[in-house]
């Protein structure tokens, strides 16, 4: 049967060699290579659950009186958008399950992308010839953040309204054009008109997902063309790929991963409440609530907005750069600028223009590891500063003091962390130990004559790591 199917495909398209190649495509084996796949399967779940949600959601700011099954809100003036989210949650069977699964999938999606990006950064997987794959990935990260924000902003509940007015302020704060741009996007001063909501909606359900899909295509095709990178191993060299072929070994593994991801997301969606919009209530511009937090992946931005001192350059009485610009626009531009520029900077400074199919262990490139640790510590600390108000509520540490301490620490700790990372890298290179498994021995090979010989010198900088051992 398979033969006849393959024959059918080949006689119509002439692609049997491609299919053969695909079935024999080799995947190197390392746990950290699965992070990207988790992101991929989250995206699949997001598209599936998202399509279901579009059947019920109504992106309209028209005001209606709520009269549905959730009694505490009955008789309140709400928007159609908010009403339809309540209906998805309470009126349509399985609606809440799908909505919560969608939201959880978005949060896990960004966790997976972020960890995947860190893995790629610290192992040098972005180096030639994989820069295109890397750029597509970084752009997908940015788009996924925007997509998530657009998604939870559509509900027109109190928290989404507070998020939108901050987004409006950040757009408004862009020098020279901010005012014009904000009026263009919102169709007038905040909260804008119902046109704004239909724009946000089409961006969320069509424009951004299609853009992510296109980048995903580039990401996967460039991976397939260059083949996977791998860690150095007993057999793994620059000029080969060692691993499990697509059929049958890898297919079942990745299927297992896909199904596991789906299982976890549905379990979260069914059992762990997320974003109960009925508790936040509808948004009106004169309302706000204490303890408001965005979804986790925007924590670094709220942190930056909160940490920035009240500095606004003026000429006379006229504001040049409104404060929201620093935390909301300048900071993310800096972070994504760094991520996009890094492969180029590294090529420039190391003068290394060669191919790299073997991955570095973080210690193999102490400077990259040090700079990366410093940089991501900086972003991470700003992220944690964003939750200072929760720390105040939970641990009673004065909010203002926390902010003052953070304002100093974010410029100190990253340098310390980077310096420490470099020292650790150098130590590890010398001792060749695994950082978590303690001191390791060297590899020993039995010679044909019955003797033993060490495979690697114990102090060389690049000793083979016994990967693939299980």
């Amino acid at each position, binding site marked *: 049967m398979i033969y006849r199917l393959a024959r059918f495909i080949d006689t119509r398209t002439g692609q049997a060699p491609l299919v053969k190649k695909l079935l024999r495509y080799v995947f190197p084996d390392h746990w950290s290579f699965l992070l990207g796949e988790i992101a991929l399967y989250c995206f699949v779940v997001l598209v599936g659950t998202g399509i279901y949600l579009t059947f019920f959601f109504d992106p309209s700011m028209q005001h209606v009186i709520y009269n549905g099954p959730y009694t505490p809100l009955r008789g309140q003036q709400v928007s159609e958008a908010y009403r339809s989210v309540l209906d998805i949650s309470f009126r349509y069977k399985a609606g809440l399950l799908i909505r919560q699964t969608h939201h959880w999938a978005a949060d896990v999606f960004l966790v997976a992308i972020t960890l995947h990006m860190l893995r790629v950064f610290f192992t040098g997987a972005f180096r030639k010839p994989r820069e295109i794959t890397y750029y597509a990935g970084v752009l997908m990260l940015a788009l996924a953040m925007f997509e998530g924000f657009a998604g939870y902003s559509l509900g027109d509940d109190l928290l989404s309204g507070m998020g939108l007015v901050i987004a409006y302020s950040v757009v408004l704060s862009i020098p020279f054009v901010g005012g014009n741009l904000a009026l263009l996007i919102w169709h007038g001063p905040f909260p804008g008109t119902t046109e704004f909501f239909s724009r946000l909606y089409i961006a969320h359900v069509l424009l951004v997902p299609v853009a992510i899909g296109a980048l995903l295509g580039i990401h996967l095709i460039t991976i397939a063309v260059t083949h996977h990178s791998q860690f150095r191993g007993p057999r793994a060299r620059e000029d080969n790929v060692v691993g499990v072929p697509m059929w049958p070994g890898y297919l079942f593994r990745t299927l297992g991963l896909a199904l596991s991801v789906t299982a976890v997301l549905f379990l979260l969606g069914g059992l762990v409440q997320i974003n109960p919009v009925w508790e936040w209530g509808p948004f009106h511009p004169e309302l706000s609530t204490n303890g408001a937090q965005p979804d986790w992946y925007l924590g670094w931005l709220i942190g930056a907005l909160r940490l920035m001192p009240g500095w*606004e350059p003026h000429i006379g009485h006229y504001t040049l750069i409104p404060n929201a610009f620093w935390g909301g626009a300048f900071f993310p531009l800096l972070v994504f600028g760094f991520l996009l520029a890094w492969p180029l900077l590294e090529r420039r400074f190391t003068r290394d223009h060669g191919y790299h199919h073997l991955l570095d262990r973080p210690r193999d490139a102490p400077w990259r590891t040090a700079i990366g640790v410093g940089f991501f510590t900086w972003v991470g600390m700003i992220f944690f500063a964003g939750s200072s108000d929760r720390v105040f509520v939970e641990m009673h540490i004065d909010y203002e003091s926390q902010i003052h301490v953070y304002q100093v620490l974010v410029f100190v700790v990253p340098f310390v962390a980077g310096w420490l990372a470099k020292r650790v890298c150098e130590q590890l290179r010398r001792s060749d130990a695994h950082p978590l498994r303690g001191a390791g021995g060297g590899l020993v090979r039995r010679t044909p004559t019955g003797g033993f010989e060490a495979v690697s010198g114990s102090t060389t900088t690049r000793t083979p790591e016994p990967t693939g051992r299980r």
Partner: protein
Amino acid sequence: MIRGAPKLLPRHRAPRRAELAVFWALLLAAAAAAGFIAVYALGADTQWLGLLLGSAFALLAFGAVVTAKALVPPEQKEEQRHSLDHDRDDLDIAVYVQEADEGITRSRLLKSAAGVAGLTVAGALLVPIASCGPFLDVAQLRRMAWSRGRRLVDDADRPLRAEDIAVGAMVPAFAEGVDRKRLDASLIVVRLDEDDLHLPDKRSGWAPSGILAFSKICTHAGCAVSMFRYPLFSPKVPKPALVCPCHYSTFDPARGGEVIFGPAGRPLPQLPVAIDERGELRAGGRMSGPVGPSWWGVQEG
């Protein structure tokens, strides 16, 4: 593939158990899915739906993982990498493209013209985006719901009366007859001891009986300044303040809305309050500055 495997490999017992495990996992997955359908039909409790559907996928995942680990021959394959660059082909492309170009004598002129035409046509295609909003009319951002004499009303459109506002109270207010969705429509009204006021000289008379009115929209990122810090017991530290819960910009009502903490770059606009003959609150004039988050060129209060 399994058929061709050497007979010597001891892979008879383990796969058999594994096969059975996969079989039961698949069967149970079907049962969980059937349970999902039943729960859906019977009333669709979200927890049960999630549990059953999640379990169905978890069992399928278990089956796939066992299949990958135990049933499929564990083979590691080695594949040679092929060089990615083609020196000759690069050159061929360059030559091929150049040859086509060479026939054109005034190619630089044509290229410039193509550039101009391309940019202009692209511009023409982009210009309709301007219809998305009144983007040249930045004056809209400055609009002001308040003028001398406009009444302050509460949630239910009732006029606010001076005697109803106790010292230390915080009351939300709106401009009478103005769409409440507008950022400039809403106010926060507080009352302090008159002795505690340190308003700028220009604002004397803006707070009769210590009643102060400020825009409710934070000048930093536009959230509603909905928190009023007012220590009730001596010593009264920290001093009374209006706080925005988004990024904790903190404003001093006694000093005309000056920023005392947080990221806001300009004071909270203050509205002069007047009390009419019936004891109702009215705007005593225009606000001290533009309402809402700042933008390029906004005038400071």
